[in-house]
């Protein structure tokens, strides 16, 4: 199980999240799907901070990122990920 990496879904709209999860599930993927509500959560998750300080290590296989989000938007998240080698 642990060898399969996560799919990270970041969207502030619960309807969009639901539809995305529905779509992913209909594909019968085995990966665990982690849903987050905004950019700051996504960054916390990626850098194992705050709430996610003790999550299991490892980067997600895919990140589905909504661009327009409150607080930290998708563009900001992307810039931070790209600037980090």
């Amino acid at each position, binding site marked *: 199980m642990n060898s399969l990496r996560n799919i990270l879904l970041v969207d502030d*709209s619960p*309807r*969009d999240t639901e*539809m995305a999860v*529905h779509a992913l599930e*209909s594909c019968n993927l085995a990966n665990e799907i982690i849903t987050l509500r905004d950019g700051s959560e996504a960054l916390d998750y990626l850098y194992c901070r705050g709430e996610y300080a003790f999550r299991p290590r490892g980067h997600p296989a895919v990140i589905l990122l909504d661009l*327009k989000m409150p607080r930290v938007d998708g563009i900001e998240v992307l810039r931070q990920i790209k600037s980090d080698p």
Partner: protein
Amino acid sequence: MIGYAYQVEWLYGLGRSIPMALHTAAALHLLALGIFSARPDQGVMQVITSDSPGGVLARRMFASLVPVLVLLSWLCLAGQRNGYYEPDLGVTLHTLAHIGIFGSFIWWSAKSLHRADMVRQQAEAERQRFFSLSIDMFCIIYTDGFLKRLNPAFNHSLGHTQEELLARPLVDFVHPDDQAAMLAEMEKLRQGLPAVFFENRVQCRDGTWKWLSWNIQPYLSEGLLYATVRDVTEPKRSEKALRESEERARWSSLFLDSVIENLPAMIFVKDATDLHYVRVNRVMEDLTGISRQDFLSKTDTELYPEDEALFFAQKDREIVAEGRMIDIPVEPLHSITRGVVLLHTKKVPIFDEAGCVKYILGISEDITARVATEREVRQLNATLEQRVHERTTALAATESKFRTLVEQSLVGIYIIQGDHFVYTNPKMSEILGYTAEEFLSRPVPDFVVDSDRAITAENIRMRLEGTAHEIRYHLRIKHHNGTVVHAEAHGTRSDSHETPTIIGTMLDITERKHAEEQLTRERNLLRTLIDHLPGYIFVKDTARRYLLSNRAHTKLLGAAAESELTGKTVFDFFPEEKARRFDDDDKLLLHSGVPVLEREEPFETNAGVSWRSTTKVLSRDAQGGIVSIVGIQHDITERRRTEAEIRVLNTELEKRVQERTSQLEAANKELEAFSYSVSHDLRAPLRHVQGYVEMLEQSTEGQLSDKAKHYVKTIKDSSTDMGQLIDDLLEFSRMGRVALAETSVQMETLARGTIQSLELAVQHRNIAWKIAPLPRVLGDPAALRQVMANLIGNAVKYTRKRDTAEIEIGCAGEEEGRLVLFVKDNGAGFDMKYSHKLFGVFQRLHRAEDFEGTGIGLATVQRVIGRHGGRAWAEGVLDHGATIFFTLKPALAS
């Protein structure tokens, strides 16, 4: 004595005086006889004592007559005194005795005299004959020098007649050089010298001189000189000739010696019998180093090395044998002093009277130096020849160069002799159309048009005769094809030919002539233009004097004609202060070259302030040198007034536009923000509608009624339409806002890519694609992809109802430096009267049932193309298709 003898006292008493004694008378007698006999050779006694017949006779008569007469007279007297006879008888007897005695005495005398005379005459005649016959000349000369007598030999010898010789002193005939000597000799004779002998020259009648030998003896008692004279001219001459011939012989021997000794050649004479040297000269001594004494009586064998001596001897024997001269061009000789000397020798035989060779004469020239010199000269000649050859080659090259130059000259070149061409280069043929042969075949004036023929002939004549050396003139020549060629001929008399020659060049100036005419027309046109232009136009020279002025300007300065202005300056027409300003203006222009362009300034005039616009520029020649100042002025009073009004209006308008613009901009911004946020925010709920309808469809699969299914589908379609509308609006908005890149875009690749992306949508369609090779353009790739997607999408959409859709993508050339691209279809087309609506947002020309669409696609196209600086337009016919054109900048070729 007589008195005593006759006893007559009267005789010896002398009258009454004492008579003289007898012995006194006898003594007186003896005294008288003594006186007479004292000088018997002088006075009266001379005749008596002379040996001449007269003297003999006289002496005889004295001796016989005196005693006879005295005796007779005494007898007569004694007879009378004694009286033997009468006195009368005595006297008669006395007279008769006298007559008898004297008569017989005279007869005897006459007889003896006659006899003597006859003897004398005989002797005289004999003498005279000898005198005349003698070849020698005899003459008797008076002591004063005149000839008394001479014999005919004089005449024969000298040619003078006797009279001529007697008429002048003898010395006159003597040679002037001998005169003094002769006179001296004569003087000696007069002094008593018994005889003289001398020779002198006497002139003949024919002017020649003869040598005469004189032998003169004087007979001073007679006052005469007797001379025998002999002509010694001939003996003298032969003596002289003999002397001269001896002299000559001596001299020629001397001359020969001198020549032989001093000739620069070596000369020797050998005896022919045993070949020993008889004679050598000084040069031979010098050359051989052997002295003269050593040579004489020796042969070559004793003097030279053996081989040389043999060679010489062999040659000598040849001469003796053949008896003719031989010439030995080069023979070496071993000289003691000079080493080996080269000689050029001629050996000549000298014959004796019998015709045998007696001597051999050798003449040798030392040619050692000459041979060396000749060798040197030969070398020099070879060098010279080489140089001449080189020079000739160079000259030939030069000649060929010049020939090429002449043959390929861009100017016609010709040579005239007489009145014919003797040479024309190819350019001449090119200008005038005749071949070189045709040129040479006719007199030069034949080629010239009739009116120029006389001047051409005259110009040729003047140069050939030398009255003009060089002439340049224009003439017209008949071209071979009949047209007239204007030409400029420039010919120069050439003095390097024997016959008078003109070398000349010819330029075809037909075009120049036409250009000049054109120029004249243009100048006239320009002048007309200048004069009738509304502005004031003037031209000044670099000294700022007027050169030209158009009518308006002339009038402005108050002059009646342009000619009143030319040469004058502004100071002649304007007040000092103003003129100074204008002039400074011109100076600055001339100095800096910076033109005055449309400078507007007010002028005070009688009608108030007049504004004029002034432009002053420099006119320059082709080299950039300043030729003149050109000035143009316009009256812009009216314009300025209008402009002022317009400025006021503009200011107002601008203000209003500004207000309106800012309002519009604000509204636009709002609209933009609004449309974006609307589009984006609308997109989310719509997505939810679509998503959930889809999920509903899946979760109720097979459970819904057909009606419910139709409802679900309608919701789906409507939300799709709405999504499309929102997408289009977002795109349209985005295209208005984003910054566009400008890179090279390959339109063909873009078009093909777009078509490929539509593959799914057209898989059941029959479409004939026609894609021309498309150029690269300059633009934003993403925006242009959007344009192509919209246009091709439209074409596909509107041809949906065609069985075979034809869609063409191509390039239709250029417009204002931009490429015109188009997308053409054979679809539904449109009515051109609505074409203006085609590119408006939400504007549609078809019903939604026929062709779906948002009415934003073409607006987006227009916006993108517009932002690229181009334009888009459409052409179409209803039901026959439409073509959308758009322009883009071509990419620069990389």
